[in-house]
């Protein structure tokens, strides 16, 4: 496998800059198409790709393509504006798909 075992983060520049200092490679994007292009490029070589919720929501269809393989892992994280509940929504949809009812009390 030609994955480089590193982490990458995609998002708005202000939100992802601090990750640069802790050794995560940053890929600042400003709009939808750029995010899609960057994700496609980055998905080939990075193992974990963090993506801020605002962009994750927009390019959901592209992210879904990477669902079936163990790598890369694409993880939505909240931005500085606080969590929008997008990540939690994913968890609850997983529960609903697997079990049929939402047994964890997630809104």
């Amino acid at each position, binding site marked *: 496998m030609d994955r480089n075992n590193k982490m990458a983060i995609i998002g708005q520049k202000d939100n992802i*800059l601090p990750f640069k*200092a*802790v050794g995560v490679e940053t890929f600042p994007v400003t709009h939808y198409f750029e995010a899609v292009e960057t994700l496609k490029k980055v998905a080939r070589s990075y193992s974990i790709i*963090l993506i801020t919720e605002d962009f994750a929501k927009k390019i959901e269809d592209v992210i879904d393509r990477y669902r079936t393989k163990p790598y890369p892992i694409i993880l939505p994280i909240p931005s500085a504006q606080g969590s929008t509940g997008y990540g939690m929504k994913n*968890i609850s949809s*997983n*529960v609903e*798909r*697997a*079990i049929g009812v939402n047994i964890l009390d997630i809104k």
Partner: protein
Amino acid sequence: MTRLNVNPTRMELRTLKDRLNMAIRGHKLLKDKADETVRQFMLYIRENKRLREEVEKDISEALKSFLLASAVTSPESMEEAVSMAGFSVELETSSKNIMSVPVPVISITPSEKKELYPYSFASVSSELDMSISNLSELLVKLVELAEIEKTCNMLADEIEKNRRRVNALEYVMIPQLQETIKYITMKLDENERSNIVRMMKVKELIEKAEKQEAENKK
């Protein structure tokens, strides 16, 4: 339920019976698999929820303090401060098998702490230090969350797929096979009965003819 379009012959009956057996065995196996996958999924999903709550809270905090820091520092010196990371994250990736679903396993190799703060303290505010030390601690959790969330995702997909298979077997394949087998046995029995009747009829005819012949000879 519709029956399969096959010829009602003994050979077909045999193959169908074999297929039915296979379908029943497969159904049982898949049902067991579904139970076990759901059990595994339950273990992970709770952990997933707990971790995500923690991580979301911490990240927001770290990012907020970074915003505060960038408010009092010029963007250029801010970027300069963070752009020379003292180390980069090294991950150890592999995958393991949960109920034949390949899920990721990651461990983060603790980087030899060269220098957590890759900048001079004079040029930026102290909020940045806070933000970065928080983030670097958070990174371990983040990796863990990534692993678990992906596992949950894949397990959920697998459970869904598996349920479809179980249902297809239980409500389509097996009834169809049973119906067809019933149809073929009935058809074969019917053939046999009509055969017997024909034999009896022929026998009667022959006996009649023989009797006539005997009478003619007299």
